[in-house]
């Protein structure tokens, strides 16, 4: 570790992995509820399990992004973090607030939680992914601002690299677009319209900048390729991301009551969203092929390459499958959306966070890379989780195609619930594959505790 203050990243990474476990457990619970409807009812109804599953995902990825920034920024800026104490204080505030929110979801009915937390002051709750109580939302803003202040001050006093600037742009964008979660117009069209400014402009906009910066950082470290070359590609990728991603928001505006031109704009621009992801894959493989050093951390390199491929498949190809308006007319909100969501989040954001953790954690623990034995185990977890996710996606895609066929395309369409019965086999297969994913995650965590010969940090 080059700078002492980078150490604040460690608790963030540990919390991220802990919450990741929670996310997967709730995923398994609701996966089972798809086929055994009253499983854990009334203690954990499906809607609560779903809320916890998606909210935990977002929160642990945010922990991962913050940890990544705290690790990367001092090294990029070549100076100690502005305030390590502030970073640690924010860690505890965020963790406690997050935990209390989840406890709130699980222990009191959602409507009671809304009453208890002052939702009547400013109504922001009750919308998918933005279910957090008002005080949690305010807490997120406070933590984000303190975090941004901390890393921005660090960059301002130190070296300004392209990677740091792209990362800052992404993180500031993340905070700014979250502010739209406080805007809740009573007109449902406008409500949905701006809701996507948080949801879409996060994952298909500013988060991609964060993804690009993290990937570029790890690639510089493990390949030793000139910063100049890597930064040039980073710029090309983020420009393509912004062009396709921002106007691509239109693929959510097909059927919500917005003007018809969105069907054209959304279809055309979002059809091209796979390009930056493809560029990212080419970029990652090219850099690794042109490497100028053999970095001892092979696991981190594997995660970096995996991010490129899986993000392209999950976000790019599976997004394209149902992004054109005439196709989306049939597939909207079906299991095809769920298939895309799973592989895109895993391939793009889960993998890039695990990639930076894989690179940074050994350094934070005082060595350049983990022992060979630990790395082999980590690579096993990579393949277990990745292959499990591929199959989860394939089963959900099959379920989605059948669902669209039976429920929407047929001359004698079935009802929603009758259709669900028909595709339950795929839900069962998805659930068992989910168990394999959990096993992969357990192996991943176990790899942190494997000892063996290690090399000292450079």
């Amino acid at each position, binding site marked *: 570790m080059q700078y002492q203050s980078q150490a604040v990243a460690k608790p963030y990474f540990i919390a991220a992995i802990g919450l990741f476990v929670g996310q997967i457990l709730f995923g398994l619970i609701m996966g089972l509820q798809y086929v055994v409807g009253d499983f854990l009812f009334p203690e954990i109804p499906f809607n609560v399990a779903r809320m916890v599953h998606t909210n935990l995902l977002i929160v642990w990825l945010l922990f991962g992004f913050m940890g990544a920034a705290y690790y990367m920024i001092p090294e990029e800026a070549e100076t100690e973090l502005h305030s390590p104490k502030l970073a640690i204080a924010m860690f505890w505030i965020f963790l406690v607030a997050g935990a209390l929110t989840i406890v709130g979801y699980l222990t009191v009915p959602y409507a009671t939680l809304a009453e208890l937390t002052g939702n009547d002051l400013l109504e922001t709750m009750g919308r998918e992914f933005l279910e957090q109580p008002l005080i949690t939302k305010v807490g997120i803003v406070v933590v984000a601002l303190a975090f941004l202040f901390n890393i921005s001050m660090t960059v301002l006093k130190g070296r300004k690299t392209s990677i740091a600037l792209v990362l800052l742009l992404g993180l500031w964008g993340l905070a700014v677009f979250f502010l739209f979660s406080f805007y809740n117009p009573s007109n449902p069209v406008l409500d949905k319209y701006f809701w996507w400014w948080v949801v879409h402009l996060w994952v298909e906009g500013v988060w991609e900048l964060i993804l690009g910066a993290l990937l570029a950082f790890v690639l510089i470290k493990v390949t030793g390729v*000139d910063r*100049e*070359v890597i930064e*040039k*590609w980073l*710029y*090309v990728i983020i*420009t*393509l991301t912004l*062009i*396709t991603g921002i106007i691509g928001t239109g693929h959510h505006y097909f059927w919500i009551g917005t*003007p*018809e*031109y969105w069907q*054209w*704009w959304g*279809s*055309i*621009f979002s*059809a*091209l969203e796979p*390009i930056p992801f493809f*560029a990212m894959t080419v970029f990652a493989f*090219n850099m690794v092929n*042109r490497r100028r050093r053999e970095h001892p951390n092979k696991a981190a390199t594997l995660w970096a390459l995996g991010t490129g491929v899986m993000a392209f498949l999950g976000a790019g190809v599976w997004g394209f499958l149902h992004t054109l308006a005439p196709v989306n007319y049939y597939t909207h909100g079906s299991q095809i959306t769920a298939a895309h969501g799973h592989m895109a989040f895993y391939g793009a954001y889960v993998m890039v966070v695990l990639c930076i953790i894989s690179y940074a954690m050994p350094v934070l623990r005082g060595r350049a890379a983990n022992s060979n034995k630990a790395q082999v185990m980590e690579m096993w977890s990579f393949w277990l989780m990745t292959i499990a996710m591929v199959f989860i996606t394939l089963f959900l895609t099959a379920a989605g195609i059948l669902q669209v066929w039976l429920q929407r395309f047929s001359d004698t369409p079935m009802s929603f619930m009758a259709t669900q019965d028909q595709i339950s086999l795929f839900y069962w297969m998805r659930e068992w594959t989910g168990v394999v994913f959990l096993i992969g995650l357990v192996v991943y965590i176990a790899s942190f505790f494997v000892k063996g010969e290690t090399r000292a940090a450079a």
Partner: protein
Amino acid sequence: MDTSATMTLNQDDTVEAAPLAPPGDLAVWFFILAELLVFAVFFIAYAVARTHDVALFAVMQQTLDPDAGALNTVLLVSSSWCVARAVLAVDGARLRTGARWLLAALACGGGFLLVKGLEYADKFAEGIGLSTNTFYMFYLSLTFFHFMHVVLGMLVLAVLWHGVRRGHYRRGRLSGLESGAVYWHMVDLVWLVLFPLVYVLH
């Protein structure tokens, strides 16, 4: 071009070894290909939409001003020529001349924006918008998307002009200048497809 040159990301490394490599940086060519793909998809969508309502498109095309479009074509082609002259001048170490050619290209670009702006003002005054009909949706979207590319291209040219004046480019170190120049040619090329497609072809 041999494969090693195609696979190389930093054009500077291989400029000697691969004389047939395209001018400018490979990254900008990748970017240009992606841009052309966006426009190509847009043009195909236009063509498909037109086949569904040929009559509407034929009538609506009559409402456009082909003279303004033709003038803009002349302006953009001229500006591309100026940019090419600028690269040649800088290659021949005539930096002042090169900077002047870039200014001339910028002036042509500015002329394009002015003419296009007047056309837009005219249409907006008639109350035409994206929801008027499918033809105008395409006309406004396509031309405005291209308009934004002209603005971006002019920013690039301004940066190049600044760089030429400060002596950043010389023979053997032209990659940056050439990259900006090929980008501008792309902006020109797109208009050369857009103008006949939307204004002229019936």
